[in-house]
């Protein structure tokens, strides 16, 4: 994650979206939503609630159904079954204008023949609003996205980050009740991404617009959203606050998807797991006698001296990471490689070099009851 937000543009002005307090903002309720494309289930009986004023990330790999869910909310797809309600009213049966949802497309879909000003004005022009009102609103939004001087540019004359902001301003122009963003930062380079993430978060904090965005990048979801919905194969795997989902994954998919994880074969005995020739405590576990345990790289500790329950390992490669070191190790006793992330102090104290012999201990190991990729495979 990055904390390079100081250079990001600050949302200027106030009350640009719908200036409703957080508790009055609309609430999205999705019930039993199913969408098939041929025999492929893009969404399979998905139910979800988004609190008014919330900022929710739909997080999942490609093909997990997150974009389909977003497109149904935007009215671009019809569900085969189920309903999507906004403040208790069915979204699907409403016309686009009644629905009044703001959508930012992955590749922005700016009108290439219209300049920035007319792109932002579009939603107001098709509503036949008075010219003075259109002009005031467009200027307000141009100020918000800090592109006041570029109103007459065509989209093709803008940078990726500028296009992204124009797409956002265009979506906000008609004061939508809900803002939807499809991979909003996907097409940008890392620096611009980091800036815009922080900007979007602050924008949301100012206008309290109920916002749903789709991403496959867990860092992005963690940084921007206050709630995460992890999706996989058309179903919701887990919903919760970013820290909750990261600390307490419900299953092995969520565990694997939210960052790197060391997966080790183990034999279970009571509240302990035996991995190779060492034993670690795993808490309560009832079920198969064989399976897998999951250990995050930052939950692996490295020591120079052997200790109880420590693996002998050899350093393969040390890479600097933001805020620490990434250490790749080979572990002969289990016949596989592991990764450990150390903070700077620990890393500096150990002064690891490639080829060093060290000892690993696991601060925490997780086991999942319904391990789809573990036991039995």
């Amino acid at each position, binding site marked *: 994650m990055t904390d390079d937000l100081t250079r990001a543009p600050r949302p200027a002005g106030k009350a640009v979206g719908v200036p409703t307090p957080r508790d009055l903002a609309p609430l999205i309720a999705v019930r039993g939503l199913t969408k098939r494309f041929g025999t492929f289930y893009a969404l399979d009986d998905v139910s979800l609630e988004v609190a008014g004023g919330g900022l929710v990330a739909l997080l999942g790999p490609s093909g997990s159904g997150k974009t389909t869910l977003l497109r149904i909310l935007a009215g671009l797809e019809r569900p085969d079954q189920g309903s999507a309600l906004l403040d208790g009213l069915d979204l699907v049966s409403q016309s*686009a204008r009644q629905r009044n949802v703001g959508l930012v497309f992955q*590749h922005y*879909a700016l009108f290439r*023949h219209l300049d920035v000003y007319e792109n932002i004005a579009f939603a107001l*022009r098709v509503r036949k609003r008075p010219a003075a009102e259109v002009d005031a609103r467009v200027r307000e939004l141009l100020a918000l996205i800090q592109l006041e001087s570029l109103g007459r540019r065509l989209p093709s004359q803008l940078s990726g980050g500028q296009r992204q902001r124009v797409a956002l301003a265009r979506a906000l*122009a008609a004061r939508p009740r809900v803002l939807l963003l499809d991979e909003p930062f996907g097409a940008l380079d890392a620096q611009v991404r980091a800036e815009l993430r922080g900007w979007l978060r602050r924008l949301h904090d100012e206008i309290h617009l109920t916002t749903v965005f789709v991403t496959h990048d867990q860092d992005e979801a963690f940084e921007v959203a206050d709630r995460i919905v992890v999706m996989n194969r058309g179903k919701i795997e887990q919903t919760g606050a970013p820290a909750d989902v990261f600390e307490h994954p419900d299953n092995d998919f969520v565990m694997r998807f939210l960052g790197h994880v060391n997966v080790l074969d183990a034999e279970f005995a009571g509240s302990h797991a035996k991995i190779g020739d060492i034993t670690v405590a795993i808490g309560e576990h009832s079920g198969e006698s064989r399976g897998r345990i999951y250990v995050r790289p930052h939950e692996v500790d490295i020591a120079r001296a052997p200790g109880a329950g420590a693996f002998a390992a050899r350093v393969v490669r040390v890479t600097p990471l933001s805020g620490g070191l990434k250490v790749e190790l080979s572990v002969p006793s289990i016949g596989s490689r592991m990764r450990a992330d150390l903070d700077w102090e620990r890393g500096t104290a150990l002064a690891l070099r490639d080829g060093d012999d060290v000892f690993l201990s696991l601060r925490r190991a997780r086991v999942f009851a319904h391990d789809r990729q573990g036991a039995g495979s």
Partner: protein
Amino acid sequence: MIDTPAIAATHEPAWIRRIVIAIGVAFVGLFVIVPLVAVFGEAFRGGLAAYGHAIADPAALSAIQLTFLAAGIAMPLNVVFGVAAAWAIARFRFPGRSILITLIDLPLAVSPVIAGMVFVLLFGQQGLIGPWLSAHGVKVIFALPGIVLATTFVTFPFVARELVPLLEAQGAEEEEAAIVLGASGWQTFVRVTLPKIKWGLLYGVVLCTARAMGEFGAVSVVSGHIRGRTNTLPLHVEILYNEYEYQAAFAVASLLVVLALASLVARRVIARRVEAT
């Protein structure tokens, strides 16, 4: 596809390049330049006065009028049909879509004479619906409606063929954006789709109009060659030629050549704008 021969050609020995270029230039010269010069040479052989006389002849003026009228009716019909068909093909997947794509090209594949005969078969006095129409006082064959029908038939592929690849390449995202932003179907078409396809549409219109004005075979079958009434420019040229009035025939023909050259220039200009979109 375009790059490959160009790259290969630069690696050929000079003498091969020269021969290939010479063949190209000689072919164009023999089949395009020489006939063009011959047309204008013959047209002005009797001097400017004879040229003016041939053009100002009432039968010639009537043919000019009819040609523009038929093209002027066929063109808007083809714009409406072409945009609708291109839209359906590019945006929707429906049963019969591939049949529609194939059938759009039919007028390019079938001989225009056969197209004309089909209309005679349908609307002629011994045709399927001709007697019923003539009982109600509608004359199609040997009259303007027949000429317009035949012209529309032979020219309807041009607009659709130009727009289908354009619409497919541009995708539907901007239209989707417009709809989510609250635009109606018509607003989306006028404000988003039309500006994107206007140069392609114009290119199709130029092709369609040029072909409409030059069409001979299909129109010849349905027109009846009634001088001063159902003769278009190409038919008038043929009649003059058959009556051994060569100078007049070439004078009128030169008008068609000018129209063709104008449409070529228009195509060049518009094609650049199409590529830019």
